[in-house]
């Protein structure tokens, strides 16, 4: 009988292993593994039981009293303030994208156009391609700027964050349109892009070198910048090309797997 190794025992302790029933059965039957598992449980249990300093019910108030003087006043937002805030611009951008996508989808959901309307169809397609191309260009710029920020010291990424926030909502709409059109390659790239944009939006605005390295690593490890570049350049090529009846987003990516 082969015994469970240390990694399997640790995964069993946390319930992370796939073969849980089999391992449980093995532990029931194997005294050696049972003893080893008991030792592991004892050690990890002891770590859990190690006391941490108590903090009473008023602790939250104490923390608040300590930090409140350091919190900058926030500007109360009226309707106009809301419009000039990054979030307002993000919503405006998303609405614009929604209009373009909805307009385009309305067009392609109609019956196959006859020759006279084909030119109109082509214009619609180009409107979408221009908007999508612009979105990809702006996303690319944010990613490039983040990748090129200083590698040491404290870095302020608030501007890049604002632009990332603005792009998230539009990106979601383009992704949904791509999914609806069955353009899985484009949808996958937009999905990856959205995750990176959301991650960047959620980071604190002041980052140290280590945190910046983590963002850079996230961008580089997924090759997202390269994928956005490829898709962007294909979209730009399609803009220039005379129209066909295919979905533009589909045509822009389905011929090459990213």
């Amino acid at each position, binding site marked *: 009988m082969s015994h469970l190794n240390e990694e399997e025992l640790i995964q069993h302790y946390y319930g992370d292993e796939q073969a849980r029933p089999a391992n449980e059965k093995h532990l029931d039957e194997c005294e050696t593994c049972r003893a080893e598992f008991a030792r592991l449980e004892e050690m990890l249990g002891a770590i859990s039981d*190690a006391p941490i*300093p108590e*903090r009473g019910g008023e602790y939250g108030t104490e923390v*608040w009293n300590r*930090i409140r003087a350091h*919190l900058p006043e926030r500007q109360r937002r009226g309707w106009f303030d809301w419009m000039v805030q990054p979030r307002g611009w993000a919503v405006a951008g998303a609405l614009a994208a929604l209009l373009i996508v909805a307009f385009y989808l309305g067009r392609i959901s109609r019956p196959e156009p006859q020759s006279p309307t084909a030119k109109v169809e082509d214009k619609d397609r180009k409107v979408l391609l221009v908007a999508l191309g612009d979105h990809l260009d702006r996303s690319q710029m944010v990613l490039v700027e983040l990748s090129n920020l200083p590698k040491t010291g404290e870095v302020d990424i608030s501007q890049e964050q604002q632009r990332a926030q603005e792009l998230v909502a539009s990106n979601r709409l383009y992704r949904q349109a791509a999914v609806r059109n069955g353009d899985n390659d484009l949808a996958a790239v937009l999905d990856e892009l959205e995750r990176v944009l959301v991650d960047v939006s*959620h980071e604190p605005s002041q980052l140290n070198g280590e945190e910046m390295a983590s963002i850079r690593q996230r961008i580089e490890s997924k090759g997202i910048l390269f994928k956005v570049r490829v898709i962007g350049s294909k979209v730009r090529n399609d803009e220039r090309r005379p129209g066909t009846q295919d979905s533009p987003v589909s045509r822009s990516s389905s011929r090459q797997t990213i």
Partner: protein
Amino acid sequence: MEVGDLAVIRQVQAGDRDAFRTLVERHSRTVFRLAYRMTQNEQDAEEVVQETFLRAYKSIDSFESRANFSTWLCRIGINCALTLMSQRKPSQPLSGTDEDGEEYEIQVPSTDPGPERRVLSGEVRDRVAKAMSQLSAVERTAFVMRHFEGRSIEEISNVIDIKDGAAKHTIFRAVQKLRRVLEPLGGYAL
């Protein structure tokens, strides 16, 4: 009826600074526990708590309603703890020999424990602190999130930005190192 986190966040985002107090009062103890587990030092944990809420306040406009505030705060807390730990210079290296006969050094936090800490089962805590100080930043983050916070592998891999399999392996390495330090001391009746 208690107002949910999201409603309070919306108030703060709309310009109500004092509404942030509710979030601080609600989550301070959780952040302190996490910070203490990460730093193994009370003063450092207090610093991390403050910094976490300051950063959260400054970044609250970027908080999205689909995210969980506690998870978001946890992520900021871990980043703050890692930043602070990287600034602390370790001292008091303890040397030893591992099971392969290779020499190793244990780095313990440089801050003096002080009388209060000693009273609170200081010896026990110091043993765990010594063991935890053997872990790399990534290992410590993964272990604290899994063991103490009960976070899923998926959440851990998201925070550290590694794949699920790598997160599992990181936890394995962390536990292995802890065993190497704690088991020779024997008797876990801590």
